[in-house]
């Protein structure tokens, strides 16, 4: 049977703290850029991380991605960085600015690098609040993201 491309989306929720504060900005510039998110003491969210994978599915390989791989990604790769952590430091790099836009790209980099060759990462979506969500479907990763290595 010909394999046909199917997408599988799996989500997990994590509780984490962050603050949006760009050290190169003045105090006033930080408050102007990030508003209430610039509280230097931090604030938190329940972040919903949705990962969409794609692969051809056949009777002999009846899944897009093995469920033990999904568990490894959420439990071993993402949880240590996002579950009850401070996102400003949990990604390891100095000066990582944990906006939703940067989070989806940092998560993309971590997840994509861990996948077997027969699975593609299609989309990373992070839901920050009822009003905010961020999606990334691949493409240019700016140099600042090396902070998340």
């Amino acid at each position: 049977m010909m394999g046909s491309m199917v997408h599988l989306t799996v989500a997990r929720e994590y509780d984490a703290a962050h603050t949006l504060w760009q050290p190169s900005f003045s105090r006033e510039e930080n408050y102007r850029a990030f508003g209430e998110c610039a509280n230097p003491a931090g604030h938190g969210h329940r972040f919903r991380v949705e990962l969409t994978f794609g692969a051809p599915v056949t009777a002999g390989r009846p899944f897009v991605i093995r469920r033990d791989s999904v568990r490894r990604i959420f439990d071993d790769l993402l949880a240590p960085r996002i579950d009850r952590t401070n996102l400003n430091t949990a990604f390891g790099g100095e000066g990582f600015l944990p906006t939703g836009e940067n989070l989806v790209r940092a998560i993309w980099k971590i997840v994509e690098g861990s996948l077997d060759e027969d699975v593609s990462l299609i989309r990373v979506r992070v839901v920050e609040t009822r009003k905010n969500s961020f999606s990334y479907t691949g493409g240019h990763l700016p140099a600042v993201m090396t902070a998340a290595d």
Partner: protein
Amino acid sequence: MVFLTRKLYFSAAHRLRVEGLSEEENRRVFGECARLHGHNYVLEATFAGEPDPRTGMIIHLSDLDAIVRDRVIRELDHRNLDEDVAEFKTAASTVEMLARYVWKRLEDAVPGAGLHRVRIWEDPDSCADYYGEG
């Protein structure tokens, strides 16, 4: 072109395994899903078409429901997918394979409208999408 999505619901039992793998290997690939268990599935069928200029509709929703119930829900609801559905006697009833199966059943379901996407939620945190071979 307008997209119309309708949700329908079914509940079923299944267990995941690949024929030819040992019991231990199946447990490793599918985890706890290798044991018999069940889900409240949500099927989202999305059709793409031009609304009829007189009615403003692609298809009347109750007509759509009747078609999807007849072609899909009747066969899957309150069943054991692996025992009761011929397709899954040999193939694993993963949510991915279910999406492809439902696609085949609905592909030509609505005259004048194309099936755009089949999305099946296995639980609130997992869904499979299939867009056909296109």
